């Protein structure tokens, strides 16, 4: 049986406990039917041309989890921001972990999605927002909608500026073979509200690590995550994704952000590893004077692969979008950047900027980068640029004339290349955490405080 057939036939058993008259059952049933039609993308699919996703769609994968795994705090403490107070929603192997979480219903809802999905109190919110901006033809979004039961639920009420950041942390314990996880986050910023959210994915143990769990035939987990974000009028969201996983685990991430007028939303994606990581980041501008900011740093090594597919849909006039993605590729790692910008006929006076710069460090590393602009308005400013190359020789010489060794100069320039993307990160602890990861990934020992 193929993975597709297996998943489709799992659906009945998966939905056993769900009230068949509930709207959520209806949404899931429709999704699985659509998935059955669409199936998994193959190589002929342009959208997946450079990412061999088949490689990780192992037939052994299952959505059913066998048991709960406990993890010592010591092993995961670095996954938290630390140093500041925050709301926390932690999941281990897709299940909520109340021990390390810190949720609230006071002033704002910061809790788990399962407690909201089938709760009558929230039925209005669910029908207004849940699964309303998700691509109804995209395989992995359909699959997630069919099988997701758990994730983070965030609702910031009107005019509230959240007092501390939210951390959404997904941890794979590695305790079970063949898990296919379907986390789902629903995030709503009501009019005039403001929030900062950090979502991260980590795995503790993979196939190549020695542990009591590993056994012949162990299959690494595959995470298929979906995040739906609604940013209402005048609201302001900073969203950060940290993907710093093992060489063997893979993530498919679909994120949909719907913005209303006068809102500002930024999403930083920090991709520091994983077997195959695919990010589909979609921004819809549904109102005037919207600003959308998409930034990314990718640093890979060994055989890792990361694919960023961004979409900014300018559907209204007087809006802006700014995309800046940088990649550093070591060893045999590979990357993809596909930046799609759609400007509707009515979306006059918009300013869309896109930049993708890549450093190929490894002799066998490669990157495919492609701007994809579809412009139907005539009075707009759209610019794009991409570079693939090595470090600037004149910059290297400049540093060396100051007594900095060739090795350090290369490290420092590589660090500076990536570091520049962090300019607008307002959360200081996060900025320092990312800077440390960057320095560590590049292998440069910096002679100054971060």
């Amino acid at each position, binding site marked *: 049986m193929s993975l597709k057939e297996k998943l489709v036939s799992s659906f009945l058993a998966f939905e056993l406990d769900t009230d068949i008259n509930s709207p959520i059952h209806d949404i899931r049933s429709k999704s699985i039917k659509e998935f059955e039609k669409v199936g998994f993308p193959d190589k002929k699919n342009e959208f997946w041309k450079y990412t061999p996703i088949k490689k990780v769609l192992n037939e052994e994968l299952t959505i059913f989890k066998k048991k709960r795994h406990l993890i010592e705090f010591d092993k995961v403490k670095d996954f938290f921001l630390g140093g500041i107070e925050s709301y926390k929603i932690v999941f281990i192997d897709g299940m909520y972990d109340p021990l390390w979480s810190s949720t609230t219903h006071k002033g704002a809802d910061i809790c788990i999605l399962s407690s909201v999905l089938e709760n009558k109190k929230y039925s209005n919110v669910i029908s207004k927002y849940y699964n309303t901006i998700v691509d109804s033809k995209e395989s992995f979004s359909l699959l997630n909608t069919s099988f997701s039961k758990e994730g983070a639920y965030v609702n910031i009420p009107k005019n509230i500026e959240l007092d501390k950041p939210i951390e959404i942390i997904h941890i794979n314990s590695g305790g079970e073979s063949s898990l296919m996880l379907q986390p789902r986050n629903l995030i709503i910023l009501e009019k005039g509200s403001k929030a900062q959210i950090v979502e991260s994915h980590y795995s503790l143990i993979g196939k190549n690590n020695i542990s009591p769990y590993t056994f012949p035939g162990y299959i690494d987990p595959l995470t298929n995550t979906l995040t739906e974000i609604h940013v209402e009028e005048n609201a302001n969201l900073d969203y950060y994704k940290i993907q710093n996983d093992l060489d063997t685990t893979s993530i498919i991430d679909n994120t949909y952000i719907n913005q209303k007028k006068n809102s500002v939303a930024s999403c930083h994606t920090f991709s520091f590893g994983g077997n195959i990581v695919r990010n589909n980041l979609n921004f819809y501008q549904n109102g005037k004077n919207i600003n959308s900011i998409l930034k990314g740093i990718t640093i890979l090594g060994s055989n890792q692969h990361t694919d960023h597919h961004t979409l900014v849909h300018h559907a209204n006039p007087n809006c802006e979008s700014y995309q800046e993605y940088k990649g550093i590729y070591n060893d045999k790692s590979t990357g993809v950047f596909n930046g799609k910008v759609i400007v509707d006929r009515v979306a006059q006076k918009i300013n869309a900027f896109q930049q993708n710069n890549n450093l190929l460090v490894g002799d066998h590393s490669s990157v495919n980068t492609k701007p994809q602009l579809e412009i139907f308005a005539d009075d707009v400013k759209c610019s794009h640029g991409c570079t693939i190359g090595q470090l600037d020789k004149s*910059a290297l010489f400049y540093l060396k*004339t100051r007594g900095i060794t060739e090795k350090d100069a290369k490290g420092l*320039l590589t660090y*500076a290349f990536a*570091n520049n993307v962090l300019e607008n990160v307002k959360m200081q602890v996060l900025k320092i955490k990312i800077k440390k990861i960057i320095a560590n990934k590049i292998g440069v020992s910096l002679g*100054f405080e971060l």
Partner: protein
Amino acid sequence: MLKIENLHVNVENKAIIKGLNLEVNAGEVHAIMGPNGSGKSTLSAVIAGNEDYDVVKGKILYNDENIEDLSAEERAHKGIFMSFQYPVEIPGITVTNFIKTAINSNLKARGKKEMPANEMLKNIREKANLLEIDSKFLSRSLNEGFSGGEKKRNEIFQMAMLEPTLAILDETDSGLDIDALRIVASGVNKLKNKDNAIIVITHYQRLLDHIIPDYVHVLQDGKIAKSGDKNLALQLEEKGYDWI
């Protein structure tokens, strides 16, 4: 300190410097003037150790050691400094962090301990004051978005921090307004002492009103065509290069 003997330099197989001799001693200021394309910038790049320039003949001796095989960073460790005509912009690293890295790299190469943080800070403040550099400027990305004057002041600030024994100022006056010129020149003058030497490469006399040279050399077609004292620069200003 510096002795250049019969130097021939090619850039992409084209001869640029064709038999140049120059001797610079501690405590001296030398000015090298000359028309465009005479090889002035090539000379500074080749002393600083730019590998794009091939020394095909002749020697560069620094404190009696042939430095031909030394890398740019090794030359810096020995006290050679070059102020760039076009300093490179490096977004993502601040002026302060850059200079800290440079200082400690040099100390490490000379087998010394890193400079303690408070001493570094004090030093940075002192030298920034010397060049009338605002403290906000120090936390900006290196040279990024700097005006021409800011870039040159930053170069001399680095020179002040690194305290080289031989400093080559490559067209430091270009792109400077009169105030910036005065600040840069007075900075250089304060750094000058009997143990170090400065080579000023320039088109114009005006910088030499502020930094008084002991010797003036005219570089023409890859060779020193004429040498003299500071009056030679005045003559050049008046008559141009054609009479030489």
